[in-house]
């Protein structure tokens, strides 16, 4: 029965979007709101159901009934495992909150906004559930097309247009790189189905396979905002409307990493099996750089949305580190981290949206002490900040602990340092903003950016009367969920089972191509986390608070010798983040070249 539901997470929102857009001129705004909320709730329900069923037995759905003939897939399949269905559920949850939030938010939009968001949802679901490489690309493009339009939505301002242009151009280049990789892989194996490609490749690690994977990886890393492919992200997030930011940061960029993980675990684990160390070393270093660059840039921002965007980059680096360990246990950690991070980050973006709604700016220095009376909103902000720092028992902590644990077992015991630094920098920045804006701590400073500042306009008529529940409600719920997921008993076991299933390439191939069924393993026993990881979570939070306090104190502005190199480094980084799309594409090309040279060299060195 549940199998019959498989195409619906894609089909229902598409149909609804078609109808809403067609009847654009005849549909009242509220009706569109209600329809969209109902549709995303329905998709959430169906995806959760699929996830449940897939935990017992992965779901296979051949569109048009074209089942494979003697191992050759003729059509397109959904191969739904718990990770894919879980991501689809998560995406629909965030879309649902975005719709609730925009109930009051956009006061002058027609139904086209709803159509765009619904298609965005359909594309994310298709992307998570598909078992076909080219189909993955199609949903990737659909997701991007909707995202470009949503990003440039506020055409009356200058910022959004530049942000959307940078976003659209870099991501389009990324998509072409992915397509090139797919084409090369197709030329080599004559297959587009992920399972069939995996079987055809076996353990073949010839140059063509490596380069195809490099292209696919680099292209999806553009979406995942991994250094040096990340430049578009801060520009796009700073300018996109708040409900759209929720989806961008909460799930879209993570889907970029998901695609790499999916392709790796279904096709590339065989070829890279003797060379795992090479891939791990490359990705661990890239992840570490991403986490560091994102963290430093985050701390240097005063535009709150941009600050949150850089924090997303930093956390993407952490998730990449989790993937780079190439272990199911670490993958389970990444899954938990994606959920935890997506929830708290969405809550933070919603609070930023509330500030924009009330005060018509999101500049930290201009807002100094302005929001003293928003106690509940302030509470949500700090609460979500604790989640960002990875304080136990938030879901982010669970993910972090699992990744660190897997790192230690894989001989990479230093991973926790990166997590600590990233948490201190990003959560420190969030706490600093909170103290300044909601409490008025620290000295009042003139906004240094002056006329160069991104012009923010309110997305509504600013109102000074309280914050309506449709605005902060979703933020509070999402932040609370991040904690709830963390304390749910058995959640680690579920993640572990899901990750093990995703990482089982042979099982995946047998299910898709041979219609085999896989015995269900009982969820593994959850061992208690060592005291050290709990301690690390607490210490990270404490250090973040200390850093926030230090940066608000008068010592911060003195020219101590220790601050000098840090300031130099940050201003150098700021130079590179120039907002110039030519620079971005040049660095993107550099990234592709670096991946394409370093990975084969590392493999040659026998790592």
């Amino acid at each position: 029965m549940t199998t019959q539901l498989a195409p619906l997470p894609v089909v229902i929102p598409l149909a609804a979007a078609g109808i809403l857009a067609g009847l654009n001129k005849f549909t009242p705004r509220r009706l569109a709101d209600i329809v969209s909320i109902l549709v995303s709730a329905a998709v959430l329900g169906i995806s959760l159901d699929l996830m449940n069923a897939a935990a017992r037995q992965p779901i296979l759905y051949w569109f048009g009934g074209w089942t494979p003939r003697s191992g050759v897939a003729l059509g397109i399949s959904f191969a739904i495992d718990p990770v894919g269905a879980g991501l689809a559920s998560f995406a629909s949850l965030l879309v649902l909150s975005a719709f609730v939030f925009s109930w009051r938010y956009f006061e002058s939009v027609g139904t086209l906004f709803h159509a765009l968001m619904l298609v965005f949802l359909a594309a994310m679901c298709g992307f998570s559930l598909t078992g076909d490489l080219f189909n993955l690309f199609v949903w990737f493009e659909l997701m991007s097309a909707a995202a470009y339009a949503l990003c440039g939505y506020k055409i009356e301002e200058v910022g959004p247009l530049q942000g959307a242009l940078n976003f659209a151009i870099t991501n389009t280049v990324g998509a072409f790189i992915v397509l090139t990789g797919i084409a090369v892989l197709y030329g080599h194996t004559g297959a587009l189905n992920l399972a069939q490609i995996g079987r055809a490749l076996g353990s073949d690690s010839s140059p063509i396979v490596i380069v195809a994977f490099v292209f696919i990886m680099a292209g999806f890393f553009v979406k995942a905002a991994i250094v040096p492919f990340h430049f578009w992200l801060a520009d796009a997030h700073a300018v996109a409307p708040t409900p759209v930011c929720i989806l961008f940061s909460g799930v879209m960029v993570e889907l970029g990493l998901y695609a790499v993980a999916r392709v790796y675990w279904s096709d590339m684990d065989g070829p890279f099996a003797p060379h795992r160390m090479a891939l791990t070393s490359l990705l661990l270093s890239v992840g570490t750089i991403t986490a560091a660059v994102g963290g430093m840039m985050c701390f240097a921002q005063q535009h709150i949305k941009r600050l949150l965007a850089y924090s997303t980059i930093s956390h993407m680096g952490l998730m990449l580190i989790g993937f780079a360990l190439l272990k199911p246990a670490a993958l389970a950690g990444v899954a938990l981290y994606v959920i935890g991070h997506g929830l708290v980050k969405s809550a933070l973006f919603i609070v930023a949206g509330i500030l924009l709604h009330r005060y018509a700016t999101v500049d930290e220095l201009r807002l100094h002490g302005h929001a003293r009376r928003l106690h509940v909103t302030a509470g949500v902000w700090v609460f979500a900040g604790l989640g960002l720092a990875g304080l136990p028992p938030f879901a982010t902590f669970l993910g972090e602990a699992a990744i660190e644990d897997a790192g230690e077992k894989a001989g990479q015991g230093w991973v926790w340092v990166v997590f600590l630094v990233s948490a201190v920098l990003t959560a420190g920045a969030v706490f600093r903003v909170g103290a300044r804006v909601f409490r008025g701590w620290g000295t009042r400073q003139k906004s240094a950016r002056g006329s160069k500042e991104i012009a923010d306009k309110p997305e509504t008529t600013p109102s000074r009367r309280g914050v309506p529940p449709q605005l902060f409600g979703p933020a509070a719920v999402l932040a609370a969920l991040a904690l709830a997921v963390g304390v749910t008993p058995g959640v680690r076991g579920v993640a572990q089972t899901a990750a093990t299933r995703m990482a089982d390439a042979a099982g995946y191939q047998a299910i898709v191509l041979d219609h085999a069924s896989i015995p269900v393993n009982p969820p593994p026993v959850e061992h208690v986390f060592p005291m050290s990881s709990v301690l690390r979570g607490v210490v990270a939070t404490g250090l973040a608070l200390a850093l926030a306090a230090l940066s608000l104190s008068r010592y911060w502005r003195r020219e101590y010798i220790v601050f000098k190199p840090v300031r130099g480094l940050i201003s150098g980084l700021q130079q590179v983040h120039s907002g110039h799309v030519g620079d971005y594409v040049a660095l993107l090309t550099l990234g592709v070249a670096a991946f394409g040279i370093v990975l084969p060299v590392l493999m040659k060195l026998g790592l």
Partner: protein
Amino acid sequence: MSLLPFAIAAWLFIIGLYGVVTSKNFVHLIMCLVIVQSSTYVLLLAIGYKVGGVAPVFAGVKVGTPAVDPVVQALMLTDIVVEATVAALLLALAVQAQKRFRTLNPDKLQELRG
């Protein structure tokens, strides 16, 4: 010689990117993106080609005649539509950007820095 089609695909890819990187006009830049995309056409076409194969249209041709790969052609059709629509979106953004900034030159857009 048999590498020629692939070399041309690679060439179109990097020359298009060169245009994107050095462009001084967004409309020019978008046309360069079209060139980058055409590289994927050449690649797909070259992958699916069979010497002496007929087109995969079996009207008046007996089934079983060696034919080129229909799958890459279906992929290219998708690719072409994607190209046109993404270009349209980018052009719309460029038109609006020009209206606000009064320039189409990426060098002169300085809103988002740091």
